[in-house]
């Protein structure tokens, strides 16, 4: 590293400190013995974690809504987006260039706009907030990541290897299944994981399209911190942090590659 290495290193460490500070605080607060948001925590206790499991609304939000919605979103988004990416890369048809940009549009529209628009849309269709409306919304925001990921993966494939398969007797379709798909493993897995996380962490859209029965974990945390504050909020947040950290580290280990946004 050049550019005045020492001052750069100091700046970088400082900035990372800035980035990690709030998270460290949240984790620290979760271990408080008292019900105040003390940081550093007065003592260490797991009471707030225990209390979470006594809150059915937390468990419901965490497992029944967020995790479930995340899984459904991950699968559907990967299917939709994967097929779309294959179409964009491997086929030529009129409107392909337009679709390439169109499919990525939800990435550039702020989520709050999507949330508001979807709220109105579902109201107009007389659909009350449900698991379905939540998942539909999440699929919308997650699919573009899949499209981009799989697109990049496909573009990086060596076409000659599939030609070799064709030369040895495989039809184009079989060559794709037998040769291209295995090489896309990392793109597909990271797509599924990404779609899950996008759904799991989303709040701006969920605030508009989730209802009393379908409160996601982030929405639950949002209302908790505003109305009833005790460190169980921090405990729930810590669980989320740990989950995400494990997933990111896992992906990095397996693919030794950066996950692009």
């Amino acid at each position, binding site marked *: 590293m050049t550019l005045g290495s020492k001052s750069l290193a100091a700046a970088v460490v400082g900035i990372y400190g800035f980035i990690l500070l709030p998270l460290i605080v949240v984790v620290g607060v979760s271990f408080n013995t008292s019900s105040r948001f003390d940081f550093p925590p007065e003592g260490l206790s797991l009471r707030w974690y225990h209390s979470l499991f006594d809150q059915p609304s937390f468990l419901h939000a965490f497992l029944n809504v967020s995790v479930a919605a995340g899984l459904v979103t991950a699968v559907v988004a990967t299917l939709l987006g994967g097929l779309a990416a294959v179409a964009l890369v491997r086929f030529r048809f009129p409107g392909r260039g337009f679709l390439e940009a169109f499919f990525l549009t939800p990435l550039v529209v702020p989520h709050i706009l999507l949330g508001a628009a979807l709220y109105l849309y579902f109201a107009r269709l007389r659909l009350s907030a449900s698991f379905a409306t939540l998942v539909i919304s999440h699929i919308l925001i997650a699919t573009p990541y899949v499209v981009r990921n799989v697109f990049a993966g496909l573009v990086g494939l*060596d076409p000659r290897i599939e030609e070799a398969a064709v030369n*040895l*007797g495989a039809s184009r379709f079989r060559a794709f299944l037998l040769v291209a798909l*295995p090489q896309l493993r990392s793109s597909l897995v990271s797509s599924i994981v990404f779609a899950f996380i996008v759904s799991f962490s989303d709040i701006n859209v969920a605030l508009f399209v989730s209802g009393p029965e379908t409160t996601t974990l982030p929405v639950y945390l949002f209302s908790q911190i505003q109305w009833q504050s005790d460190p169980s909020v921090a405990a729930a947040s810590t669980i989320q942090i740990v989950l995400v950290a494990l997933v990111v580290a896992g992906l990095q280990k397996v693919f030794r590659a950066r996950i692009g946004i």
Partner: protein
Amino acid sequence: MPTDRVPDLRVEGLVKRYAPQVSIGPISFEVYPGEYLSLLGPSGCGKTTTLRCIAGFEDLTEGAIYLSDVRLDRQPAHKRNVGLVFQNYALFPHLDVYENVAFGLRLARIGRREIERKVRAMLELVGLIDVSQRMPSQLSGGQQQRVAIARAVVMEPRVILFDEPLSNLDLKLRLQMRRELRDLQRRLGKTTIYVTHDQTEALALSDRIAVLSHGQIEQIGTPREIYERPASAFVADFIGTANLVKGVVIGTANGRLTIEVGRGLRLIADWQGAVPRGSVLLMLRPERIRFDLPQADAIENRFSGTLGDITYLGEDLSLAVHVDGGLELMVTAKSDARNRALTPGAKLELSAASADLHVLSS
């Protein structure tokens, strides 16, 4: 030239048009059973496109391709059974050596025991039986190439196509692989079409060479024919180095032509057939010009010149000679003690046999 055998592969009038003004062809040639034919030419000459047309990855705009008299170009690529060895081998990165070689056999729904027998036999043949469990990324370049060949050959194709397989290798490895390739091809006796831009490679490996330029075949012949009797200035210059001199035919006698070059210098070249009129191009290979021949020895052409630049090439010396009579010739000489002592300005007596002068019509 074998004329009574039936060719394994016949390309007739192949034309491939990319754009209104951009096309290659018409290209026609035949490859006979067991023959090793090279398609040789610079980048963009159409050799790779021709190969890909044979393999089925490009469609012909006009013309036809026949494999043992059966129309090939109408068949889809995966049904043609012509083996293709790619430039960067295109091994399946997610399969080990064994599975790579077995790939085509599995697709053909051949029985498991039969597959095992064939794959093992092929791996033994190419000397890879010990690494059959390794992944392509764990193999050396030479080993990868052998896997690529094994994979294609195990399918028992009628013809094998090679797309510049050695061009990514460094010199030493290339020479070694070249020898292995030739050995392998002799042992297997497969009809082979080999695309390359490296003329030394083509000369070393082929039974016949087709030289291409700008989408046309300039000449097809044995390596010797191509080298000693090039049909055009392009071929003469592309294969080896050549001195190309303009001259005028001023006489003919006993199967020889007398040609005047430069300012009054007369050279005699062997020639058969109709006497070309007017100006011609004379080709003389640098290594065929001698400057140390004793006066007593009979040779058709003698002329003198002054030494200009000397370039040391290790094994040889390249001499630029200003010939009396207004010519510039490149002469290649062995780098022995006497020749190394030459200095610019030295007077040289040059000689060349009439058989080594080749006439190209202008």
